């Protein structure tokens, strides 16, 4: 196993270059998988026995929901890294992830409501998953609000890291508590996934879309972190020597 010098890329200057080389590839992959997934999901997959054509929302709803959780975990990961190794890049990565995660959490709620209305007759249901997703959205907003409110970069990064970690620990607790509450109330017991009874095409469509969204996220976050690096390292010599900055 070739030993990669991870700490080489912990330096913003080096990561800037790496991210710059990587994001276009991910963008291409995202586009390709998105087109393939949409084709499978909207052109090939048959209509559902119970839900007719309306079920096709899952090809968007499920990927954004998954990503909203994956991104939060990634934020927690970078936060732990940042507090442990005290690297500037960790704070930048966490900050670059947040807006996309928040967007996906919002879209999860939005598409979920639009799926729920025709299927269960209501825009909203206090089921464990929905409620947890709502709270996850608040966690994102909290992180963004906190880091935006603190002017000092270092303090902002570290405070954000702490809230990200505390929030990450809290997510399973919230899910568990709401599930418990929900079973007591015997709320709408809906199953949002179709499990193994799903036609293979549908499954493949969802998988392709999930990957598409994942590639999209990686590409966008790498792109965004480059902007952050430029902003924060603007006084460094290497920035002045970049081609794109020469007047």
């Amino acid at each position, binding site marked *: 196993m070739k030993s990669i010098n991870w700490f080489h890329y912990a330096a913003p200057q080096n990561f800037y270059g790496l991210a710059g080389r990587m994001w276009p590839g991910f963008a291409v992959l995202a586009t390709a998988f998105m087109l393939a997934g949409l084709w499978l999901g*909207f*052109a*090939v*997959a*048959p*209509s559902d026995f119970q839900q*007719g*054509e*309306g079920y*096709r*929302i899952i090809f*968007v*709803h499920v990927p*954004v929901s998954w990503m909203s959780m994956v991104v939060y975990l990634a934020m927690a990961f970078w936060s732990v890294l940042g507090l442990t190794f005290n690297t500037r890049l960790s704070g930048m990565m966490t900050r670059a992830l947040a*807006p*996309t995660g928040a*967007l996906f959490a*919002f*879209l999860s709620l*939005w*598409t979920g409501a*639009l*799926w729920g*209305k*025709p299927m269960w007759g209501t825009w909203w249901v206090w089921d464990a998953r929905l409620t947890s997703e709502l709270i996850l959205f608040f966690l994102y907003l909290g992180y963004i609000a906190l880091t935006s409110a603190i002017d000092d970069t270092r303090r902002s990064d570290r405070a954000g890291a702490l809230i990200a970690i505390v929030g990450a620990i809290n997510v399973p607790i919230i899910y568990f508590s709401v599930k418990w509450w929900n079973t007591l109330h015997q709320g709408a017991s809906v199953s949002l996934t179709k499990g193994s009874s799903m036609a293979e095409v549908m499954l493949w469509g969802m998988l392709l879309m999930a990957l598409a969204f994942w590639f*999209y996220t990686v590409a*966008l976050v790498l*792109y*965004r972190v*480059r*902007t952050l690096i*430029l*902003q924060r390292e*603007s006084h460094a010599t290497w*920035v*002045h020597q970049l081609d*794109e*900055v*020469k*007047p």
Partner: protein
Amino acid sequence: MRWESWSQFWAMGGYAVYVWGSVGVTALLMVLEVWQARWAHRAVLNQLKAEQAVAQLPVDEWK
């Protein structure tokens, strides 16, 4: 191919509002997100270019 005509496709078996409401908003917000990221990046580059231009002027022109 599932659909027999474009109008069938857009109608989505009566669920048009919900399906296209979801897919549409998702697509829209993602496009906006990408635009915003590009705009922000360009803004920072322009800022840096301007700073460089100033830095390269002969010293007495800074005043």
